[in-house]
């Protein structure tokens, strides 16, 4: 008996080889037509926009980004490096009652997720490579640092109230920010488990179109990428959009210029 890999590959080769090219008109109407039997790569027409008409970081691009972010219920802030620390400190929520009990059912089962004594002030987690100046003004806030080498556990991440990260790139037309796991953006779990995500995006990181972002990210495609467009949401109930499900229920995007 041949192994599955050999058999599947030979089935595919057989399927491609045996296709009757005179079989008829039905099928794809793509630019390459139905001449799919050829082994040579067909030409892919790429007439679509590979970049927008506006430069990265331009006012026009920022305006579109803000419009899209607001449309998807993200909260947008504009600031300067000087005012950033104070803004961040303000955005970290106080430990709220809702963090203890979600809805009316307590999901914290003590045997699995030990609850640390709750503190009245908020706690924030930051990736270890974050610009230390950003978090310098968080006087009343407990700041915890996470790295690949010294990661917080899931339970510990669940205890903090917010996460502050940088970003790799933002796409204006779709209202998207992309994290690529580098030291200022952190492990994927860090930007996922806390209920509030504060993401600091430099205005020169904002491109207009998706292709611009993909080509930039393509320089390091092996990095774990998280594309974020607004807070988590669902439309599973009568197609009505509800913001805030399993991912952070609040997304703050801070535009830094």
């Amino acid at each position, binding site marked *: 008996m041949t192994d*599955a890999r050999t058999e599947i590959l030979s089935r*595919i080769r*057989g*399927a*491609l080889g*045996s296709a*009757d090219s*005179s*079989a*008829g*008109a*039905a*099928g*794809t*109407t*793509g630019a*390459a037509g139905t001449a*799919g039997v050829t*082994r*040579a790569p*067909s030409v*892919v*027409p790429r007439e*679509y*926009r590979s970049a927008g008409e506006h430069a990265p970081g331009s006012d026009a691009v920022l305006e579109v980004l803000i419009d899209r972010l607001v449309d*998807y219920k993200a909260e947008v802030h504009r600031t300067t490096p000087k005012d950033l620390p104070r803004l961040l400190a303000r955005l970290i929520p106080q430990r709220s009652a809702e963090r203890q009990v*979600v*809805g009316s*059912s307590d*999901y914290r089962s003590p045997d*699995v*997720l030990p609850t640390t004594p709750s503190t009245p002030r908020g706690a924030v987690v930051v990736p270890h490579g974050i610009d230390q100046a950003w978090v310098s003004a968080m006087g009343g806030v407990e700041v915890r640092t996470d790295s*690949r080498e010294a990661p917080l556990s*899931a339970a510990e991440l669940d205890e903090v109230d917010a996460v502050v990260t940088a970003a790799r790139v933002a*796409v204006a037309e779709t*209202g998207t920010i992309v994290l690529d796991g580098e030291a200022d953006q952190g*492990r*994927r*779990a860090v930007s*996922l488990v806390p209920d509030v995500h504060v993401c600091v995006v430099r205005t020169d990181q904002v491109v207009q179109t*998706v292709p611009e*972002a993909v080509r930039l990210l*393509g320089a390091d495609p*092996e990095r774990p*990428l*998280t*594309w*974020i467009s*607004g807070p*988590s*949401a*669902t*439309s599973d*109930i*009568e*197609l009505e959009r*509800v913001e*805030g*499900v*399993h991912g952070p229920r609040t997304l703050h995007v801070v535009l830094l210029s």
Partner: protein
Amino acid sequence: MSTFLGMPAARDRRGPGPDAAPGTLSGVGRPEDPLHWGASFPDAAKAALDNGQLRRNLGKATSTIRTKRARVVGEVPDWEALRDAGSAVKTDVMARLPELLEELERNVTARGGVVHWARDAAEANRIVADLVRARDTDEVVKVKSMATQEIGLNEALAEEGIAAVETDLAELIVQLADDMPSHILVPAIHRNRTEIRDIFLERMADAPPDLTDVPRELAMAARAHLRRKFLSAKVAISGANFAVADTGTLAVVESEGNGRMCLTMPETLITVMGIEKLIPTFDDLEVFLQLLPRSSTGERMNPYTSMWTGVTPGDGPQEFHLVLLDNGRTKVLADEAGRAALHCIRCSACLNVCPVYERVGGHAYGSVYPGPIGAILTPQLTGEESDLPYASTLCGACYEVCPVKIDIPSILVELRAREVSMTAGSAGDTADRVWSAAMKAASFAMADGARFRRAARVPRLLRAISRNGVIRKLPFPGSLWTRSRDLMEPPKQTFRDWWDGREDQR
């Protein structure tokens, strides 16, 4: 309604009957074969049409999403160019599938992933069950995935004592209600908010007793229910929307964050993916990440898209398994006329615009792939005789919205022609049979004047394969017949005119 769709004699299918119709709390049950269950299409469709609640739920949901999609597609100036590119990329993928799969395997392996190959559902389920058991756990979290629905993975795991917890809100609803998905994107589209609340209250042990039917509250109840599972699960199982051959990158597109939870928190990730999900290069993502969200949820971009390449030390699952699934796909590939069905990126836009789907819902198709794409893909995957190709008015709306330009109506006509030819005793009257088969959607379309007017496309479809007013060559197996005889071209008048004329003659 006995001549509903005027199809060939209904064939019975294995699995539950049509009586467990939506509208009751319990769903249709989990069938033996996820690609072939329930009553035949005409019977199931008839039952569905009698279910007013179902029709109201569907009508509301599909019209909402149609409007959203139209708006966000309308704001993209190069939409048609993106569709052309998407279609051509997929055609290229099919032509080079063996080498691209090998390239993907090399790249995933080089980054610490393990690639498995599965010829059919049983083999895929075996691989996954063995992997889970070796991790010493009896519960796995799952991201919504059509491939694992198709192979009945949850049921296979259950037989081995492993509980697979669906974490997508709609999949959770379907799972709790012992139901089947009725839509590719929104599997519980046949349920309204009140039914969902009732399902949660009865079947979800930790649902708050004072739960109302406000969608936000329902979503929060699901959040609370699943959170502990996410944070403690050892193994997650996912599908994939795309796999990039030249980098080994996998992508999952989602909304709720349940995907991120599953793809990030557990130690082990197992991804089951059909072999057709490939794209050649990382840059090709720029096409599909524009086409998919706008076509599917009607958003400019879905809230979350995760991409990972093998294993990233210190970040996310430290063990990654990719199961490449055939399960009939090579059969579809061998059929040049139907091959384009493999281009599908499962956006579900064709369901939302389909007048037949809107009326009968997903369950009537008796397959995890309902709607127009299901009508062509399901019979091709199973290789069985099927009445699904008749579940269409051939109005062409599905083709117009398809982001990768799959010409579903033409493939439907082709499949119908084969079906008729297969059941015809002799070739003597094949021309008439082919013609009438292609027209057989008429009685359904008649039920709705506005829809009916749109069905004007049919004669054009047949004219497309004719020259000089004579059809010289029908697609196989019609070609067996047209080889020796010419067939008159269908009249140039519209379908409606043609029908009206027929009526007048009576």
